[in-house]
């Protein structure tokens, strides 16, 4: 619900959960300020049993605040002997914009973990993990669906959920020289001989909370550099319903769009500086969206996060 179950793949005949983004995270590596952790999770409730070998999974970095990627970590998978192997590339500058598998290979044939023990690959200053993990997201989904009737304590719908995660530990130098960066993720799938963006996510729940009906699909297919022009009206309309003036709503929309997670890699702070696994982003956003009427969903962070890479908890 951070971004779970909102991808257009959900409504296509294929219903491909493998490219349905659930969350992404960006935070300074605990104990080592020279590195950052970038995590992209897909496959809500782990309905599918693997990654999509035809897809490209991307973690995108904007280093100059123009809502276009300057660095892209591109991950793809191959089915091999009943398992999967991952390749991770780093593309910079014009190559980061491409919907293709360009860039320097950082990891090749990195094994995907399907069991509780994470297999971690290392290459120079980089670490990589991909595989089945516990979903770190926490939220009282039923109370939300029941008209935002939250209680304390609430019921965490995701407490026993799994996802497929991709985690990268990177030296900050690989993210550019400017520590103030923007991060978002997207999934690309082949369509008519090209790759099409089928899901994307910056900050949690932007699409879920502000986009109506089929506009959710349009939002998922759009690029962040068009967000302000295309989607400001949608955000303002919802915020005004919660009592914000047009001016206030417009100011907030200007913060929320483009849908990119802002992150200063020199800071260990959490959301809105990047996002750590345990950051209660829903509480923060509930207070913001409802104009302070609702400040918590009554559930807190999971207790199964690992203290070391890949940080995502053991799958249930």
């Amino acid at each position, binding site marked *: 619900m951070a971004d779970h179950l909102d991808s257009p793949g959900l409504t296509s005949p294929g219903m491909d959960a493998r490219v349905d983004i659930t969350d992404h995270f960006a935070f300074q590596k605990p104990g080592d300020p020279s590195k950052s952790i970038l995590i992209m999770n897909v496959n809500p409730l782990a309905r599918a049993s693997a990654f999509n070998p035809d897809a490209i999974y991307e973690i995108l970095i904007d280093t100059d605040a123009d809502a276009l990627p300057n660095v892209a970590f591109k991950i793809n998978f191959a089915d091999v002997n009943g398992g999967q192997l991952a390749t991770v590339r780093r593309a910079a500058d014009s190559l980061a914009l491409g919907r293709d598998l360009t860039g320097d290979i950082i990891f090749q044939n990195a094994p995907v973990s399907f069991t509780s023990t994470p297999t971690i690959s290392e290459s120079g200053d980089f670490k990589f993990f991909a595989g089945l993990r516990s979903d770190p997201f926490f939220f009282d989904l039923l109370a939300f669906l*029941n008209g935002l*009737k939250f209680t304390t304590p609430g019921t965490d719908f995701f407490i026993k959920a799994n996802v497929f995660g991709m985690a990268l530990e990177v030296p900050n130098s690989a993210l550019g020289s400017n520590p103030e960066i923007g991060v978002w993720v997207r999934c690309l799938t082949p369509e008519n001989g090209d790759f099409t963006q089928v899901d994307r996510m910056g900050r949690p729940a932007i699409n879920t*909370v502000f986009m109506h009906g089929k506009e*959710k699909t349009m939002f998922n297919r759009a690029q962040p550099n068009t967000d302000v022009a295309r989607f400001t009206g949608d955000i303002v309309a919802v915020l005004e319903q919660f009592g914000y003036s047009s001016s206030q709503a417009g100011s907030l929309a200007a913060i929320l769009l483009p849908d990119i997670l802002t992150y200063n890699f020199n800071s260990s702070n959490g959301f809105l500086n990047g996002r750590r696994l345990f950051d209660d982003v829903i509480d923060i956003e509930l207070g913001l969206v409802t104009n302070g009427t609702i400040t918590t969903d009554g559930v807190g962070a999971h207790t199964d996060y690992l203290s070391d890479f890949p940080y995502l908890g053991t799958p249930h």
Partner: protein
Amino acid sequence: MLPQVGLLTPTSKEAFTFRAVAGVPGGILPSYASYVVQGGVNLATQTGVITKNLFAGPPEAASAFALPGLARIVRVTTVREMGSTLEILGTVDDASVLLKGESSKVQIKVDKSAGTVRTPFIDEEIELKLE
């Protein structure tokens, strides 16, 4: 697309099938999921089966993926016809699926002339549109 049972349709003099949908959450926020109530009843025998499911996606773009733990199968025990309205009473026999505070007894009101169905969602009655 969601599986279709059909419109509120008289399949015989005494039997009706229907399908009704509402987006949740309702109100200000965009719908995240589709609450679907569908099934059939027999007025003569006072029997039937109604299912309640919550599918991911808003009604305009709903999926066939039912959120786990929220499906209910209602065994119809009573059907009353009052003008254009059917009042259906039933029971969820599998108590293990019920949420805390959720009753096993279910009431569903089908208003044929208004094109609506009213029935509880979690703990509050909501209105669904007949399709």
